[in-house]
């Protein structure tokens, strides 16, 4: 049986029950939202179930949506079934006041650095991560630069005159 978006959806619903996930499909790629305290159970099921076998973690990243109150941060997992060449996107939403998410490092070794990067830029606190510290930015940095409230431009700079850039 080939692995299609419909069959994945059916298997997940059969395991976790109706209304557990919110499914959507963008450009042919299945995307599912899971409750944040169940992220490991879902990943484990996707990994273990022989017909699904999503055993390669392509990427972990986060998205900050300030207007989405109570669910400002989302952590996005990109999974890949290498045998069937099927990809899957899983999203987990969390509030920015309490950005705690269970770490996936027990399941995927590669999650270690990806979660450190996600912590570095968005401040997602991965509970149980063996070494959660900054990976790319300087250690002295005291904010999470990709959160929307921080302007992209370097705020320490004083020699740039806004009028010269047409924003005076």
């Amino acid at each position, binding site marked *: 049986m080939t692995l299609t978006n419909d069959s994945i959806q059916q298997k997940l619903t059969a395991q976790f029950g109706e209304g557990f996930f919110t499914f959507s499909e963008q450009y042919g790629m299945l995307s599912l939202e899971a409750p944040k305290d169940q992220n490991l159970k879902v990943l484990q099921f996707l990994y273990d179930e022989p017909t699904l076998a999503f055993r390669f973690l392509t990427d972990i990243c986060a998205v900050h949506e300030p207007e989405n109150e109570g669910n400002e941060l989302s952590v996005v997992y990109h999974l890949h079934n290498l045998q069937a060449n099927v990809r899957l996107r899983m999203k987990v939403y969390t509030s920015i006041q309490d950005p705690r998410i269970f770490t996936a490092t027990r399941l995927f070794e590669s999650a270690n650095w990806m979660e450190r990067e996600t912590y570095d830029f968005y401040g997602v606190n991965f509970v149980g991560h063996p070494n959660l510290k900054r990976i790319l930015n300087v250690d002295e940095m005291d904010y999470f630069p990709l959160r929307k409230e921080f302007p992209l431009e370097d705020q320490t*700079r004083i020699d740039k005159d806004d009028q010269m850039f047409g924003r005076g």
Partner: protein
Amino acid sequence: MSRPVRFNIHPIEADIKEAVGVAEAPEGYAGEGFFTTQLSSVVGLARKNSMWPLPFATSCCGIEFMATMASHYDLARFGAERVGFSPRQCDLLMVMGTIAKKMGPVLRQVYLQMAEPRWVIAVGACASSGGIFDSYSVLQGIDQIIPVDVYVPGCPPRPEAILDGFIKIQDLVGQESIRRRNSEQYKLLLNSYGIE
């Protein structure tokens, strides 16, 4: 492809008299069998014509520097034949390219390892001011962490511009007073960067 024959039939004899340059003697008092001048002029003359650059190249300006070093533009014409890769032996730090904030302490360490007298040239927009990378991760000009003598604008600057910056450095080196590095002013400059 071989070179067309028509380029080779009338080879121009090189005029060696024009090609070989001799540095001008500094101002002084000359008499029969002796010549007096300032020590600083002689030292400056020697220093400026035998600079040892240390290339600190991180991006595209480094590629332009490679062209500057190669035969066509030939930095060796100005006495900078020997590019060193040990800061202990070099007296001109050439910073070429974007310096990320994480690279800052490394650059500073390299500068501190150089022996006095030492000069710094910031090549390109990124090294001079952060350039287009007005961003949380990029150092907005290396003069935030080390003193800079000459800035070369451009993104990246052409080899001619790098050579021009190098000639400006040579002017500074040639005119520098021999006591400058011991002066109170110089100490204050270094102290303002947290270097003693």
